[in-house]
């Protein structure tokens, strides 16, 4: 009985974790094999390694803190290419689903040929996910980050940049 409970609990956790970014995963799944688009996925350990090396080389506090912040990025995904290759209805669905999954828009800018949207998912001062969509006249870029970034760490970088 205990084993069964454990399996149910584990499955629920796995399902919940998976469901957290299901809409992003679905979107990437649709486009990641398209040769007309560039799909880059950088795992967290590589980002942390690069950040650690760069941190040693950092000449000032600002550089050091920025690299420390970069270590909080657990995964980076970028999908970029020609805008006409991506269905507009898929983008609309993606953003509707992101809202349902608890993503919140921080800001957006739309002009004649540019569309920029910046969303995050945050809980108790921890930023868990970041999504940036940038569309220009002909280009499309979707960047998503899985993070474990505390607002205090972000504040420290802003404070340092303001002092310089």
């Amino acid at each position: 009985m205990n084993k069964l409970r454990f399996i149910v609990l584990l499955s629920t956790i796995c399902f919940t974790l998976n469901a957290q970014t299901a809409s992003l995963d679905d979107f990437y799944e649709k486009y990641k094999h398209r040769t007309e688009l560039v799909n880059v996925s950088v795992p967290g350990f590589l980002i942390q390694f690069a950040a650690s090396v760069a941190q040693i080389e950092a000449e000032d506090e600002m550089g050091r803190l920025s690299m420390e912040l970069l270590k909080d990025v657990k995964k980076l995904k970028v999908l970029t290419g020609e805008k006409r290759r991506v269905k507009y209805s898929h983008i609309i669905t993606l953003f509707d689903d992101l809202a349902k999954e608890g993503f919140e828009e921080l800001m957006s800018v739309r002009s004649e040929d540019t569309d920029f949207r910046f969303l995050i998912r945050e809980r108790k001062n921890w930023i868990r996910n970041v999504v940036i969509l940038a569309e220009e006249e002909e280009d499309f870029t979707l960047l998503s980050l899985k993070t474990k970034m505390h607002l205090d760490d972000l504040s420290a970088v802003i404070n340092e940049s303001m002092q310089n």
Partner: protein
Amino acid sequence: MKKWSYALLVACFCMLGSMLNAQADAISQYFNQYLEDERFTVVYISPKMFQMIQRMDVDWDLEENEAQAVMATVEDLRGLRILIADEDIDTLYEEATKKIDTKGYEILMSVRSKKKSNVQVLVKDEAEGNIVNELLMLVGGKESFVLMSFVGKINLKKVSELQNSFNE
């Protein structure tokens, strides 16, 4: 009796709907079509951004009393929308001033200069007068037309404290 209950319920919903509509900001109320208009650049800062700014421990290079006053003012802001157009400036400015219902909004300040530059600051406030629900700025400049809408509970006392803290 049942019919009356339904009628009452429907009436309540209608009232609630009209109340919510009355609370809508000027851009949603009068300039919704501009949001999709390609002549405009539209910037939107969400309430979430204001909440995060408030929660972040950022040293804004201000004196302590200034920082406190800024944060006290920011805490009740619920969003900022900016619309900018670089063409048809005069027409857009004229259209905007005509569209805004003067019963809902009061002109706080208006400037017209020789260089064909017009500025109007309007507010929508609550009955007590100390709380402003929206601060709307219309600028019909030489090079662009700007419509800026701050939405939230803007406490005029806090704004004056902010002004005082910078004057000290």
